[in-house]
């Protein structure tokens, strides 16, 4: 393997890990705080992708500028879904949460299929496919921009959870809901906010993905899986764990993908299995601390 190829692999992995961290972040937050494995996370991502697509298509809004809009819309949707549906099963057994969120995923994907058809879409901008070169290594602008947006959102969420009063309330609720209640935290509101933040992060990820990969209503499932693997790899608990999980996942996917593409998923899941044996606490489902 040449140095140039190695460099390109490193750059590709870095750029991918930024987007994947954002994909997994909201998933991890909802899982960690509410103990809900949100199988409809991927569907939220697809909604974000469609919002960006239509804003670009109808009003020529730059896809990067539509990220906040996607986030706001999905924040609203997430808040509403939590208050109306998810809250009903918040203390139900795990299976009930799986069923509800899985059903939600199917509902959203089929609605998208109904309204937008199965047509494959991509957001193409004048700067799509352009980039700069360092030596023999190429850095596409869009992926770099996506990495930038992801980094900012990851840092903002990290700061929000540790520095702000509301963020501390969210983490407190995740640690011990009864204790949080005793100190005056309104748990239903906190849960709704947590789910809404998770959905809005999915929306941002969808907006960014719409520029990077061609998509249709079925895009989301694969990203729910990736988010799950990243959360298990990194472990729940805090933002840094998600970053570690996303970095490990990306390096494996890109590196193995360039040498033995047919095996890349086998290797990723193989590492997951080994990790579960060696470090089972990765899946302990700890809350944010």
């Amino acid at each position, binding site marked *: *393997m*040449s140095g*140039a*190829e190695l460099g*390109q*692999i490193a750059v*590709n992995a870095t750029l*991918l890990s930024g987007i994947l961290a954002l994909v997994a972040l909201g998933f991890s937050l909802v899982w960690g705080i509410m103990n809900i494995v949100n199988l409809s996370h991927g569907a939220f991502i697809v909604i974000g992708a469609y919002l960006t697509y239509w804003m670009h298509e109808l009003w020529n809004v730059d896809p990067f500028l539509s990220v906040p809009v996607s986030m706001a819309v999905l924040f609203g949707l997430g808040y509403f879904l939590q208050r109306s549906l998810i809250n009903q099963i918040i203390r139900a057994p795990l299976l009930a949460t799986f069923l509800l969120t899985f059903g939600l995923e199917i509902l959203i*994907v*089929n609605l998208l*299929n*109904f*309204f937008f*058809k*199965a*047509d*494959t*879409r*991509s957001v*193409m901008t004048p700067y*799509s*496919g352009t*980039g700069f*070169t360092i030596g023999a290594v*190429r850095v*596409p602008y*869009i*992926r770099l921009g996506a990495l930038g947006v992801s980094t900012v959102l990851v840092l903002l969420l990290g700061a929000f959870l540790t520095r702000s009063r509301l963020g501390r309330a969210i983490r407190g609720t995740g640690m011990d809901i009864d204790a949080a209640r005793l100190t005056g935290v309104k748990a239903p509101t906190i849960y709704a906010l947590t789910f809404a933040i998770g959905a809005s992060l999915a929306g941002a990820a969808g907006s960014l993905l719409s520029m990077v*990969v*061609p998509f*249709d*209503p*079925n895009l989301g499932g*694969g*990203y729910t899986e990736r988010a799950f693997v990243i959360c298990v790899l990194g472990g729940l608990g805090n933002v840094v764990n998600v970053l570690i999980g996303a970095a490990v996942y990306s390096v494996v*996917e*890109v*590196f*193995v*993908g*360039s*040498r*033995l*593409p*047919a095996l*890349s*998923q086998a290797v990723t899941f193989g590492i997951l299995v080994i990790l579960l044996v060696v470090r089972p606490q990765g899946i302990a489902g700890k809350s944010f601390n």
Partner: protein
Amino acid sequence: MRRTLCSAAGLLLGSMTVLAADTIVFGAAISITGKTAKEGEYTRDGYQFAVDKINELGGIKVGGKTYRVELKYYDDETKPERTAQLIEKLINEDKVNLILGPYGSSPTGTAAPIVERYKIPMVEANGSAEAIFSKGYKYTFMILSPAKNYLRGVIDTILAKDPSVKTVAILGENEAFSKEVAGGAADFAKEKGLDVVYYELYPTNAQDVSALLTAIKGKNPHIILGSGHLQDSLLIVKQAKDLGVSPRAMGFSVGPSSPEFRANLGKAADYVFGATQWTEVLKYNGEDAWKTPKAFGDAFRSKHPNYKIVPYQVAESAVAVIAYQKAIEKAGTIEPTKVRDSLAALDIMTFYGRIKFDSRGVNVYKPMAAEQYQPDGNKYTVWPFDVAEKPALYPMPPWDKR
């Protein structure tokens, strides 16, 4: 949306009239959702279009009796195991007379043993992996050219333009059909004296092929060939542009033939070659209701104005129904085993090309064509040369010089 409603209504009507006598019901499991949802839609529309046409012309005449035809289909969600269940349901519960194939080689592969067991023929229009036909099945018939021939037209076109090309990189989706396409392309390239410098399969549902393209860039091949489905082809072109991978020519088995290829890629779609089973400019003169590819295309568009270009999946799906019509008329009965024998002996010319099956049930008698998007925004058939609309543009300019 309106079309969905119409077809939903059609489905309802279809199931209501199943019990009426004098109706031949074709059953199918098609991917209306899932990865190949778009191609499934083409398949469904093609079947339905031919069924409507036959009814419009009075139905199928069998020994003095006239049968109307109906299509009854379910969504297999692009899951091959679901296809198999639905085919069983269609045969056992819905009592359909004959089976039309699903979309894709894997679902066709799971459907084939079921129809074999019940001795009900299946004419399939969208599964071209020959692996299905190496098992000695007698009831499955492939109307289209087999997978291993897919990229031959593209390789021939490039070699005709530039005999100096030496190296080719091939990347394919790790799935029954695409694997055969990739393998067939590699064999054909070697036969033509090319050096296959890169050959890899990537997992289904890959969302990132930049790693493979990086490895290919290091090999600097003259040609890059991809065998996957529409989304894969889009991803490869998009990321090749991102990474500045500029071969002299790029070609894909599936993707460029669909209008969405250019809708998604814009100018990046230009110069890319695509394999196709059929295009509207081919010069066939068939014995079916439409006779020529052009007449079929025009008739389909007048019914489905949302299609600017008629994808080959629509044509091959429609011709599967026509093959049944001709076979039933020749058999003089709708008894499934007799229809099967009649299919095995069929040799007809259609708007889609010649339909004749070899002893395995594969239509090896129809050639593949090649198409290319050109900078004026249109797609042209560039191979076979004798029916080409325009000469192929070659080489592909590097991404940064466009």
